[in-house]
């Protein structure tokens, strides 16, 4: 059975770039916009790559900055300097 990993952010200028990066790096990503927030679901595994976010933002980005904008997550988390990964059944 496929489970969705997901992440939700407050909508703002920084997360617009983060969401663009997630959509490019995760084929099958489903983006749901709700008042003041945006939620992205990906089957099994959702990855946020630092380099992709930096490219979209046009500046350096520390993945721990995600803390400022996060609303909720689903999945087991693994975080390194380069990738923030949420996964089920891995």
């Amino acid at each position, binding site marked *: 059975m496929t489970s969705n990993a997901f992440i939700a952010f407050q909508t703002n200028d920084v997360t617009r770039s983060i969401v663009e990066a997630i959509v490019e790096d995760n084929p099958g990503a489903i983006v749901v916009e709700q008042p003041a927030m945006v939620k992205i679901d990906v089957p099994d595994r959702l990855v946020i790559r630092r380099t992709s976010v930096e490219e979209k933002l046009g500046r350096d980005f520390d993945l721990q900055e995600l803390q400022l904008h996060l*609303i909720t997550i689903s999945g087991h988390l693994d*975080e390194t300097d380069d990738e923030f990964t949420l996964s089920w059944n891995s």
Partner: protein
Amino acid sequence: MDMKTSKKLGLKERYTMMTRDLAWDTTYQPMDKVFPQVGYEGIKIHDWDKWEDPFRLTMDAYWKYQAEKERKLYAILDAFNQNNGHLSVTDGRYINVLKLFLGSTPPLELMAARGFSMVGRQMVGAGPRVACQMQAVDEYRHFQTQIHSISNYNKFYNGMDEFAHQQSRMWYLSDGKSFFDDAITAGPFEFMVAIGFAFEYVLTNILFVPFISGAAYNGDMAAMTVGFSAQSDEARHMTLGLECIKFMLEQDPDNLAIVQRWIDKWTWRGTRKLASVGMMMDYMLPKRIMSFKEAWEIYFEQNGAALFTDLARYGVTIPKCFAQTVEEKEHVTHQSWLGFYMKPESTPFHTWIPGPDELDWLSEKYPNTFDKYYRPMYEYLDAQEKAGNRFNNKTQPMNCQVCVNTIKYNEPGDPMEMCFRETVYQGEKFHFCSGHCQEIFEDEPEKYIQTYISSHQALQGNCAPEGVDTHAPDFNPGSHIADYWRLDPRATGDFNGSEDQKNFAAWRDLATKN
């Protein structure tokens, strides 16, 4: 030319050095005497170093990001208040959801701060100790910022000033109080399952995600910024709860049976606590983004199924109550709002009959149940109110001995029959709202016979203001309880005809005209 200096240490190394390497084993006293609480629940731990916080957040980074969150939050709060933001919410009725939130949520955040301070001291490993310390500080921040954001509304509307006094005394606040009292008086591992797992993973996703998105939709920037700021910490808290469950299951196969019992118990307790949150979404937000039923499907059924499918590798099965919660999602919010509507003199917030378009929205969102069971009740109560006979139940409620909800839910499989369960323990009869609560009681009766139940206390003469003779022959507990609660009469009753309704309309008028 751009020269980028590489970081001295990677995230994993930084985390290891700043947490585990700063801890030590005691030598003057043996470790099991310094940390006596981790053993008595029966959980077996062989290697505390196997616990790793997946966020790998070090204390210095924690302070940096939390300070930034606070700056953002207070900038928005100041702007909202300076701009008379309270008059930009959709409808004066909306403010009542904040009154309910104020009484029910910040005091629980404070209990969570206390609980994580305690558990942080009791855990042996440096990983969980640091994570618990951060969570304790987070919970204290939530407690303060929630009160701070609502304090501006308190300048204008009734019913908010005595929430701290009322929290441990009033009937409808007892379910949340008992949830945390139960958790904090358990051992450290059960506390982690209760709060870190059931409360954070199940409850806060619904309270702080769709409900707060709904607050934003209703123009309340203050609640939105506080709610989302809090929830940005919850992602870390959920991770801690899940990590704790995995850690226990990986450490020893004997832990499974204990963990499973806690998962069953606390998922049910979280579900019961959510009935009033669901009611806030379905009935108290004038503009709605999704029904409680839809939120339950996304955040509990789908997300919960993902979690339990994943944990199946350890032998964990889905919580026993799962099927019942799926059946109840179509009923509990309606039963809760009807319960509050029928006690207009017993809450510091107003209730009302939903308007015609709101009844239609409920019919659309609850096609299987609303028109069949609940619309006729609202139409009857509405006709009675219009005829000058607004329903007013003056009796004491009957509460469940475990979850302390008023007993009002239906028998599984039979929406027309109220569910009652009872157990006789040491010659005394105890009442429950459900088979699940009855089972929780029967597992630990000595704990739950001590539950504080407001209506019992009132009938025993313990809820009268000082100076009232509770032994006088004509003593009537019901006539003193509002004073004991310090309930402002202006804050009670139906929203129609209330001072809040008049003031909101008058001030909004002033805000748009000269």
